Protein backbone atom coordinates (compact mmCIF):
# COMPACT_ATOMS: atom_id res chain seq x y z
CA UNK A 1 0.00 0.00 0.00
CA UNK A 2 1.47 3.32 -1.01
CA UNK A 3 1.69 6.25 1.36
CA UNK A 4 -1.15 8.79 1.22
CA UNK A 5 -3.61 6.07 0.10
CA UNK A 6 -5.99 6.40 3.03
CA UNK A 7 -8.19 7.87 4.36
CA UNK A 8 -10.82 8.25 1.70
CA UNK A 9 -12.82 10.77 3.69
CA UNK A 10 -12.09 13.95 5.68
CA UNK A 11 -14.60 15.81 7.85
CA UNK A 12 -14.39 18.89 10.03
CA UNK A 13 -17.56 19.00 12.17
CA UNK A 14 -18.63 22.23 13.89
CA UNK A 15 -20.22 20.74 17.00
CA UNK A 16 -19.67 17.85 19.40
CA UNK A 17 -23.08 16.46 18.41
CA UNK A 18 -22.04 16.38 14.75
CA UNK A 19 -18.74 14.77 15.75
CA UNK A 20 -20.52 12.04 17.73
CA UNK A 21 -22.79 11.28 14.76
CA UNK A 22 -19.77 10.89 12.48
CA UNK A 23 -18.08 8.59 15.01
CA UNK A 24 -21.18 6.39 15.31
CA UNK A 25 -21.52 6.16 11.53
CA UNK A 26 -17.79 5.46 11.20
CA UNK A 27 -18.07 2.28 13.27
CA UNK A 28 -14.55 2.40 14.73
CA UNK A 29 -12.84 3.27 11.44
CA UNK A 30 -12.26 6.95 12.31
CA UNK A 31 -9.14 8.73 13.47
CA UNK A 32 -9.46 12.11 15.18
CA UNK A 33 -6.99 14.84 14.33
CA UNK A 34 -6.42 18.22 15.98
CA UNK A 35 -3.00 19.82 15.46
CA UNK A 36 -1.76 16.57 13.98
CA UNK A 37 1.81 17.01 15.21
CA UNK A 38 2.01 13.46 16.58
CA UNK A 39 -0.64 11.64 14.59
CA UNK A 40 0.27 12.92 11.11
CA UNK A 41 3.78 11.44 10.64
CA UNK A 42 2.33 7.92 11.07
CA UNK A 43 -0.66 8.62 8.82
CA UNK A 44 1.51 10.16 6.10
CA UNK A 45 3.87 7.17 6.23
CA UNK A 46 0.85 4.88 5.77
CA UNK A 47 1.34 3.16 9.14
CA UNK A 48 -2.33 3.68 9.97
CA UNK A 49 -4.99 3.84 7.29
CA UNK A 50 -8.29 4.99 8.77
CA UNK A 51 -11.30 5.20 6.49
CA UNK A 52 -12.30 8.53 7.94
CA UNK A 53 -10.20 11.37 9.32
CA UNK A 54 -12.10 13.80 11.55
CA UNK A 55 -10.69 17.24 12.36
CA UNK A 56 -11.91 18.56 15.75
CA UNK A 57 -10.31 22.01 15.51
CA UNK A 58 -13.38 23.66 13.95
CA UNK A 59 -15.55 22.91 17.01
CA UNK A 60 -15.79 26.25 18.81
CA UNK A 61 -16.67 24.83 22.22
CA UNK A 62 -13.40 22.84 22.21
CA UNK A 63 -11.36 26.00 21.56
CA UNK A 64 -12.21 27.84 24.77
CA UNK A 65 -10.24 28.57 27.89
CA UNK A 66 -12.54 29.30 30.84
CA UNK A 67 -11.09 30.59 34.08
CA UNK A 68 -13.30 30.19 37.13
CA UNK A 69 -12.41 30.64 40.74
CA UNK A 70 -10.61 27.53 41.88
CA UNK A 71 -10.34 25.85 38.53
CA UNK A 72 -9.57 26.47 34.88
CA UNK A 73 -11.09 24.60 31.99
CA UNK A 74 -9.30 24.25 28.67
CA UNK A 75 -10.91 22.74 25.56
CA UNK A 76 -9.33 19.83 23.69
CA UNK A 77 -8.56 21.93 20.59
CA UNK A 78 -6.80 24.75 22.48
CA UNK A 79 -3.20 24.99 21.26
CA UNK A 80 -0.16 25.12 23.51
CA UNK A 81 0.69 28.62 22.19
CA UNK A 82 -2.85 29.78 23.07
CA UNK A 83 -2.30 28.54 26.63
CA UNK A 84 1.09 30.27 26.80
CA UNK A 85 -0.45 33.56 25.59
CA UNK A 86 -3.48 33.36 27.89
CA UNK A 87 -4.03 34.25 31.52
CA UNK A 88 -3.35 30.58 32.32
CA UNK A 89 0.37 31.24 31.76
CA UNK A 90 0.21 33.57 34.78
CA UNK A 91 -2.21 31.61 36.96
CA UNK A 92 -0.40 28.32 36.21
CA UNK A 93 3.21 29.35 35.73
CA UNK A 94 4.35 25.76 36.28
CA UNK A 95 2.24 24.63 33.32
CA UNK A 96 3.63 27.48 31.19
CA UNK A 97 7.16 26.51 32.16
CA UNK A 98 6.43 22.87 31.29
CA UNK A 99 4.84 23.67 27.91
CA UNK A 100 7.75 25.90 26.92
CA UNK A 101 9.82 22.67 26.72
CA UNK A 102 7.50 21.17 24.09
CA UNK A 103 8.99 21.09 20.58
CA UNK A 104 9.49 24.45 18.90
CA UNK A 105 7.15 27.39 18.39
CA UNK A 106 5.61 26.14 15.10
CA UNK A 107 4.87 22.82 16.81
CA UNK A 108 3.31 24.59 19.84
CA UNK A 109 1.24 26.70 17.41
CA UNK A 110 -0.48 23.49 16.22
CA UNK A 111 -0.21 21.04 19.14
CA UNK A 112 -3.33 20.81 21.30
CA UNK A 113 -4.48 19.80 24.78
CA UNK A 114 -6.58 16.91 23.46
CA UNK A 115 -3.86 15.70 21.12
CA UNK A 116 -1.28 15.55 23.88
CA UNK A 117 -3.60 13.56 26.15
CA UNK A 118 -4.82 11.20 23.44
CA UNK A 119 -1.30 10.53 22.17
CA UNK A 120 -0.30 9.79 25.79
CA UNK A 121 3.45 9.99 25.47
CA UNK A 122 4.90 8.71 28.79
CA UNK A 123 6.94 11.94 29.07
CA UNK A 124 4.31 14.44 27.91
CA UNK A 125 4.44 17.66 29.93
CA UNK A 126 0.70 18.44 30.03
CA UNK A 127 -0.18 14.96 31.29
CA UNK A 128 2.39 15.22 34.07
CA UNK A 129 1.14 18.63 35.25
CA UNK A 130 -2.47 17.46 35.10
CA UNK A 131 -1.58 14.47 37.29
CA UNK A 132 0.49 16.59 39.71
CA UNK A 133 -2.39 19.07 40.12
CA UNK A 134 -4.95 16.24 40.46
CA UNK A 135 -6.88 17.64 37.52
CA UNK A 136 -9.57 15.91 35.51
CA UNK A 137 -10.33 15.02 31.90
CA UNK A 138 -13.78 15.71 30.45
CA UNK A 139 -14.99 13.42 27.71
CA UNK A 140 -18.34 13.17 25.92
CA UNK A 141 -19.20 10.35 28.37
CA UNK A 142 -17.70 11.21 31.75
CA UNK A 143 -15.29 13.22 33.86
CA UNK A 144 -12.25 11.16 34.79
CA UNK A 145 -9.67 12.14 37.46
CA UNK A 146 -6.22 12.40 35.83
CA UNK A 147 -4.91 9.65 38.14
CA UNK A 148 -7.46 7.19 36.70
CA UNK A 149 -7.13 8.38 33.12
CA UNK A 150 -3.35 8.13 32.90
CA UNK A 151 -2.16 4.63 32.12
CA UNK A 152 0.91 3.02 30.61
CA UNK A 153 2.21 2.89 27.05
CA UNK A 154 -0.33 1.47 24.57
CA UNK A 155 -2.96 0.93 27.26
CA UNK A 156 -6.35 2.09 26.15
CA UNK A 157 -7.54 5.09 28.11
CA UNK A 158 -10.64 5.92 26.09
CA UNK A 159 -13.71 3.80 25.44
CA UNK A 160 -15.06 3.22 21.96
CA UNK A 161 -16.24 6.50 20.40
CA UNK A 162 -15.24 8.40 23.53
CA UNK A 163 -13.72 11.82 22.79
CA UNK A 164 -11.66 14.10 25.02
CA UNK A 165 -13.50 17.43 25.24
CA UNK A 166 -11.18 19.26 27.63
CA UNK A 167 -9.39 19.33 30.94
CA UNK A 168 -10.03 20.80 34.37
CA UNK A 169 -7.00 22.36 36.00
CA UNK A 170 -7.15 23.07 39.76
CA UNK A 171 -5.12 25.97 41.19
CA UNK A 172 -1.38 25.35 41.07
CA UNK A 173 -0.59 26.02 44.73
CA UNK A 174 3.10 25.47 45.48
CA UNK A 175 3.82 23.34 42.39
CA UNK A 176 7.16 23.87 40.62
CA UNK A 177 8.49 22.21 37.49
CA UNK A 178 11.85 21.07 36.13
CA UNK A 179 12.85 19.16 33.02
CA UNK A 180 15.90 17.91 31.16
CA UNK A 181 15.84 17.60 27.37
CA UNK A 182 18.30 15.53 25.36
CA UNK A 183 19.73 18.79 24.01
CA UNK A 184 19.50 22.40 25.07
CA UNK A 185 16.39 23.30 23.12
CA UNK A 186 14.00 21.69 20.65
CA UNK A 187 14.96 18.34 22.15
CA UNK A 188 13.08 15.38 23.50
CA UNK A 189 12.22 15.01 27.17
CA UNK A 190 14.51 12.74 29.17
CA UNK A 191 13.20 13.32 32.70
CA UNK A 192 10.65 15.82 34.03
CA UNK A 193 9.48 16.52 37.56
CA UNK A 194 6.80 18.59 39.26
CA UNK A 195 7.28 19.16 43.00
CA UNK A 196 4.80 20.42 45.57
CA UNK A 197 5.96 21.56 49.00
CA UNK A 198 4.22 21.66 52.39
CA UNK A 199 6.35 22.73 55.34
CA UNK A 200 9.14 20.11 55.44
CA UNK A 201 7.35 17.65 53.16
CA UNK A 202 7.38 17.34 49.38
CA UNK A 203 5.24 15.52 46.84
CA UNK A 204 6.96 14.59 43.58
CA UNK A 205 5.44 13.75 40.21
CA UNK A 206 8.03 12.28 37.88
CA UNK A 207 8.01 11.41 34.17
CA UNK A 208 10.72 9.52 32.30
CA UNK A 209 11.29 6.65 34.75
CA UNK A 210 8.19 4.48 34.35
CA UNK A 211 5.82 3.88 31.44
CA UNK A 212 3.64 6.72 32.83
CA UNK A 213 4.06 9.77 35.08
CA UNK A 214 3.85 8.79 38.76
CA UNK A 215 3.08 10.84 41.91
CA UNK A 216 4.61 10.17 45.31
CA UNK A 217 2.88 10.43 48.68
CA UNK A 218 4.07 13.30 50.91
CA UNK A 219 7.69 12.45 51.77
CA UNK A 220 10.61 14.07 53.55
CA UNK A 221 12.92 15.93 51.20
CA UNK A 222 15.74 13.61 52.28
CA UNK A 223 13.70 10.59 51.14
CA UNK A 224 13.17 11.87 47.59
CA UNK A 225 15.80 9.64 46.00
CA UNK A 226 14.51 6.54 47.80
CA UNK A 227 11.03 7.17 46.49
CA UNK A 228 12.31 7.81 42.95
CA UNK A 229 14.11 4.44 43.08
CA UNK A 230 10.87 2.72 44.11
CA UNK A 231 8.91 4.00 41.08
CA UNK A 232 10.09 1.28 38.70
CA UNK A 233 9.41 -1.42 41.30
CA UNK A 234 5.75 -0.47 41.15
CA UNK A 235 5.39 0.39 37.44
CA UNK A 236 7.06 -1.00 34.29
CA UNK A 237 10.29 0.93 33.64
CA UNK A 238 10.35 3.13 30.55
CA UNK A 239 12.70 1.81 27.89
CA UNK A 240 15.11 4.43 26.57
CA UNK A 241 18.10 3.23 24.51
CA UNK A 242 19.98 6.51 24.94
CA UNK A 243 19.59 7.20 28.66
CA UNK A 244 19.90 4.32 31.13
CA UNK A 245 17.49 4.06 34.04
CA UNK A 246 20.43 4.57 36.40
CA UNK A 247 21.25 7.87 34.65
CA UNK A 248 17.62 9.02 34.56
CA UNK A 249 17.27 8.32 38.30
CA UNK A 250 20.29 10.51 38.99
CA UNK A 251 18.87 13.27 36.75
CA UNK A 252 15.48 13.04 38.50
CA UNK A 253 17.17 13.50 41.89
CA UNK A 254 19.07 16.56 40.65
CA UNK A 255 15.93 18.03 39.05
CA UNK A 256 13.98 17.66 42.31
CA UNK A 257 16.75 19.46 44.21
CA UNK A 258 17.03 22.21 41.58
CA UNK A 259 13.26 22.67 41.46
CA UNK A 260 13.18 23.09 45.23
CA UNK A 261 16.28 25.27 45.24
CA UNK A 262 15.21 27.81 42.64
CA UNK A 263 11.65 28.12 43.88
CA UNK A 264 10.56 28.69 40.28
Amino acid sequence: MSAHAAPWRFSAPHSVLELERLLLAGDGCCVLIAGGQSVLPGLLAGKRQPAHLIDITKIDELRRIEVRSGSTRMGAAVTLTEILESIVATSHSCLARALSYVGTRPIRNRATVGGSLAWADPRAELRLILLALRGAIHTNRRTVPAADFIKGVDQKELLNNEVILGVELPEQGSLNFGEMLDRNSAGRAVVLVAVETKVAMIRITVGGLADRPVTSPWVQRASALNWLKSVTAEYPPLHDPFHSLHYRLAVAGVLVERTLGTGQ
Partner: protein
Amino acid sequence: MTHDAPIQMCVNGEEITETAAPLTTLASFLRKVGLKSVRLGCEEGVCGSCSVLLGGRSVRSCLTLAAQSQGASVQTVEGFTHDPKLRAMQDAFITHFAAQCGFCTGGMLVIVAEYLADRTVRDHIDEATIRERLNAVVCRCTGYQQIVAAVRSLALQNLFPNVS
Protein backbone atom coordinates in the same frame (compact mmCIF):
# COMPACT_ATOMS: atom_id res chain seq x y z
CA MET B 1 -9.76 4.98 -3.22
CA THR B 2 -9.36 8.56 -2.07
CA HIS B 3 -11.96 11.27 -2.33
CA ASP B 4 -10.38 14.45 -3.60
CA ALA B 5 -12.19 17.61 -2.57
CA PRO B 6 -11.83 21.26 -3.59
CA ILE B 7 -9.88 23.23 -1.00
CA GLN B 8 -10.02 26.99 -0.94
CA MET B 9 -7.61 29.23 0.93
CA CYS B 10 -6.23 32.73 0.75
CA VAL B 11 -2.57 32.34 -0.18
CA ASN B 12 -0.44 35.48 -0.11
CA GLY B 13 -3.58 37.59 -0.49
CA GLU B 14 -4.94 35.62 -3.43
CA GLU B 15 -7.95 33.27 -3.28
CA ILE B 16 -6.90 29.83 -4.51
CA THR B 17 -9.00 26.72 -5.04
CA GLU B 18 -7.41 23.37 -5.84
CA THR B 19 -8.59 19.81 -5.42
CA ALA B 20 -6.60 17.70 -3.00
CA ALA B 21 -6.81 14.28 -1.35
CA PRO B 22 -7.60 14.16 2.42
CA LEU B 23 -3.95 13.48 3.30
CA THR B 24 -2.42 16.14 1.03
CA THR B 25 -0.13 18.24 3.19
CA LEU B 26 -0.23 22.02 3.09
CA ALA B 27 3.39 21.84 1.83
CA SER B 28 2.44 19.70 -1.19
CA PHE B 29 -0.58 21.91 -1.85
CA LEU B 30 1.50 25.11 -1.83
CA ARG B 31 4.27 23.65 -4.00
CA LYS B 32 1.62 22.43 -6.45
CA VAL B 33 0.34 25.99 -6.88
CA GLY B 34 3.91 27.11 -7.59
CA LEU B 35 5.18 28.35 -4.22
CA LYS B 36 8.61 26.75 -4.28
CA SER B 37 9.97 28.70 -1.29
CA VAL B 38 8.19 25.98 0.71
CA ARG B 39 10.94 23.37 0.84
CA LEU B 40 10.49 19.79 1.95
CA GLY B 41 13.40 18.59 4.03
CA CYS B 42 12.67 16.04 6.74
CA GLU B 43 8.88 15.87 6.20
CA GLU B 44 8.38 15.08 9.89
CA GLY B 45 8.31 18.50 11.53
CA VAL B 46 11.94 18.74 12.58
CA CYS B 47 13.91 20.77 10.01
CA GLY B 48 11.53 23.72 9.57
CA SER B 49 12.33 24.50 5.92
CA CYS B 50 8.64 24.14 5.06
CA SER B 51 7.50 26.69 7.70
CA VAL B 52 4.72 29.05 6.56
CA LEU B 53 2.39 31.46 8.34
CA LEU B 54 -1.10 30.04 8.81
CA GLY B 55 -3.45 32.68 10.19
CA GLY B 56 -0.36 34.70 11.13
CA ARG B 57 1.28 31.89 13.11
CA SER B 58 4.22 29.78 11.97
CA VAL B 59 3.41 26.13 11.28
CA ARG B 60 5.16 23.17 9.70
CA SER B 61 3.38 22.88 6.36
CA CYS B 62 4.59 19.25 6.12
CA LEU B 63 2.68 18.50 9.35
CA THR B 64 -0.47 20.43 8.48
CA LEU B 65 -3.11 19.10 6.12
CA ALA B 66 -4.34 21.22 3.24
CA ALA B 67 -7.87 20.11 4.20
CA GLN B 68 -7.35 21.54 7.70
CA SER B 69 -6.32 24.87 6.18
CA GLN B 70 -9.64 25.23 4.35
CA GLY B 71 -10.68 28.90 4.36
CA ALA B 72 -7.49 30.00 6.13
CA SER B 73 -5.03 32.73 5.27
CA VAL B 74 -1.56 31.45 4.38
CA GLN B 75 1.63 33.43 3.83
CA THR B 76 4.88 32.25 2.31
CA VAL B 77 8.03 34.23 1.56
CA GLU B 78 6.70 34.88 -1.97
CA GLY B 79 3.90 36.86 -0.29
CA PHE B 80 6.41 39.14 1.38
CA THR B 81 7.72 40.30 -2.02
CA HIS B 82 6.01 43.67 -2.12
CA ASP B 83 6.48 44.28 1.56
CA PRO B 84 9.34 46.63 2.53
CA LYS B 85 9.81 44.52 5.64
CA LEU B 86 11.01 41.63 3.48
CA ARG B 87 13.47 43.96 1.79
CA ALA B 88 14.80 44.85 5.25
CA MET B 89 15.03 41.17 6.18
CA GLN B 90 16.85 40.36 2.93
CA ASP B 91 19.27 43.26 3.46
CA ALA B 92 20.01 42.16 7.02
CA PHE B 93 20.60 38.55 5.91
CA ILE B 94 22.94 39.77 3.12
CA THR B 95 24.81 42.23 5.37
CA HIS B 96 25.44 39.58 8.01
CA PHE B 97 26.14 36.70 5.54
CA ALA B 98 23.19 34.85 7.07
CA ALA B 99 22.33 32.76 3.99
CA GLN B 100 24.54 30.30 2.18
CA CYS B 101 22.85 27.52 0.18
CA GLY B 102 19.46 29.09 0.90
CA PHE B 103 17.50 25.86 1.40
CA CYS B 104 16.35 26.81 4.92
CA THR B 105 16.13 30.56 4.29
CA GLY B 106 12.43 30.62 3.32
CA GLY B 107 11.48 28.85 6.56
CA MET B 108 13.95 30.96 8.50
CA LEU B 109 12.39 34.22 7.20
CA VAL B 110 8.91 33.00 8.11
CA ILE B 111 10.04 32.32 11.70
CA VAL B 112 11.82 35.70 11.82
CA ALA B 113 8.72 37.51 10.49
CA GLU B 114 6.59 35.92 13.23
CA TYR B 115 9.16 36.92 15.86
CA LEU B 116 9.40 40.52 14.60
CA ALA B 117 5.60 40.86 14.52
CA ASP B 118 5.33 39.63 18.10
CA ARG B 119 4.16 42.58 20.17
CA THR B 120 6.44 41.60 23.02
CA VAL B 121 9.55 41.56 20.83
CA ARG B 122 10.87 44.88 22.10
CA ASP B 123 11.15 43.34 25.55
CA HIS B 124 12.99 40.30 24.22
CA ILE B 125 15.79 41.42 21.90
CA ASP B 126 18.28 39.19 23.64
CA GLU B 127 20.33 36.44 22.12
CA ALA B 128 18.69 33.68 24.20
CA THR B 129 15.20 34.57 22.94
CA ILE B 130 16.38 34.90 19.33
CA ARG B 131 18.10 31.52 19.52
CA GLU B 132 15.02 29.98 21.13
CA ARG B 133 12.92 31.22 18.19
CA LEU B 134 15.47 30.15 15.57
CA ASN B 135 15.66 26.64 16.99
CA ALA B 136 12.56 26.01 14.86
CA VAL B 137 14.65 25.87 11.68
CA VAL B 138 17.75 23.79 11.06
CA CYS B 139 20.53 25.42 8.98
CA ARG B 140 23.23 23.04 7.83
CA CYS B 141 25.69 25.45 6.27
CA THR B 142 25.91 28.98 7.62
CA GLY B 143 25.60 28.13 11.27
CA TYR B 144 23.58 30.35 13.51
CA GLN B 145 25.98 33.09 14.53
CA GLN B 146 25.35 35.24 11.46
CA ILE B 147 21.63 34.51 11.45
CA VAL B 148 21.32 35.55 15.10
CA ALA B 149 23.23 38.76 14.29
CA ALA B 150 20.90 39.51 11.34
CA VAL B 151 17.77 38.91 13.43
CA ARG B 152 19.12 41.02 16.29
CA SER B 153 19.77 43.94 13.91
CA LEU B 154 16.23 43.55 12.52
CA ALA B 155 14.66 43.47 15.98
CA LEU B 156 16.47 46.70 16.86
CA GLN B 157 15.09 48.37 13.69
CA ASN B 158 11.54 48.05 15.08
CA LEU B 159 10.00 47.11 11.71
CA PHE B 160 6.53 46.74 13.17
CA PRO B 161 6.03 50.07 14.99
CA ASN B 162 2.24 49.83 14.71
CA VAL B 163 2.06 46.65 16.70
CA SER B 164 1.13 47.69 20.21
